[in-house]
């Protein structure tokens, strides 16, 4: 097989592998996997959707990095039942969130409410971003003033000429030009 054909084959194989990789991860990116485990569901699909959306917002207090919708921990299962029961009983989303916060604190919500204690959490990143941007602007403006040196005054021109004469560089250059 010629070199060109080997190269072509190798490229094709890698391309196909990359495609497979992307397509395998694509569904997960487009539609976040329906990770909510299928315990008994509410008969009303609209209520079930509301309950599931809530489950995604609520942190599992055992595993912490998972929502209760994704977790199989005993407490997560119990809280799923509880949320479904409350949704079915007509509680609003806010009432259910409050119910959980009363018992487990703001920590149980992945998206904590904006208040004095959480202000740093919400505003902090923007402060850091603005500070960084300010530093960047300052840095570039300063660099521009450094990059443009002032023109030589007459005295400096004379000194440069004298130095060139003394060194003989000026003679060399004159000589090379002939």
């Amino acid at each position, binding site marked *: 097989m010629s070199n060109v054909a080997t190269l072509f084959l190798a490229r094709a194989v890698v391309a196909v592998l990359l495609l497979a990789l992307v397509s395998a991860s694509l569904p997960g990116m487009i539609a976040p996997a329906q990770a909510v485990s299928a315990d008994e569901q509410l008969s009303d699909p609209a209520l079930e959707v509301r309950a599931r959306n809530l489950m995604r917002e609520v942190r599992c207090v055992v595993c912490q990095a998972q929502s209760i919708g994704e977790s199989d921990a*005993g407490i997560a299962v119990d809280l799923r039942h*509880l949320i479904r029961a409350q949704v079915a009983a007509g509680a609003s989303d806010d009432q259910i969130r409050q119910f959980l916060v009363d*018992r487990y604190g703001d920590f149980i919500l992945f998206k904590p409410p904006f208040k004095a204690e959480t202000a740093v959490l919400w505003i902090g990143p923007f402060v850091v971003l603005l500070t960084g941007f300010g530093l960047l602007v300052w840095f570039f403006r300063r660099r521009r003033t450094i990059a443009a040196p002032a023109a030589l005054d007459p005295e400096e021109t004379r000194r440069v000429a004298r130095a060139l004469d003394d060194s003989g560089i000026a003679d060399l250059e004159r000589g090379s030009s002939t």
Partner: protein
Amino acid sequence: MRRLIFLVPLLVVVLLAVLFWRGLDPARNPASLNSALIGKSVPAFALAGLTPGAPGLTAADLKGQVTVLNFFASWCAPCRAEHPLLMELARDPNLRVVGITYKDEPAKSAAFLAELGDPFAAIGADETGRVGIDFGLTGVPETYVIDRDGIIRYRLAQPLDSARLEQEIRPLLADLAS
């Protein structure tokens, strides 16, 4: 002044180091976050005892005397490990130790206590785990200190150990009893 700018990266590294050091402090571990119920009254509950005739436990029982409330289960190995410390606490005449069994069959809880000794002045059986949720329970064992007015003053979301017992719990109990 211009030279000082070279100290900025060093400063950033030091700041990050301090931040990480603080973040890694066991006291700041989100797993041991303070209960949202600290400073609040115990939630209302009424639980049956382990045997049909036993008195059980209600929220009203937690008033009038400094109380240590322990959530446990016979299926929970760390509960077994901390049990001797509860036995020791129960000998203190200035407080009452009560228990709630969490998602456990009453007969198995009773067998657990028959084997290891029963430190509890009263026991309620939370077979569904619903009362646990009202307490903001994250798992078993958990231990609560409740003052005479029925206000939750302390929560330990892990097994008791003698260091914590002596350094955190006993001083608090002495304080509350005085």
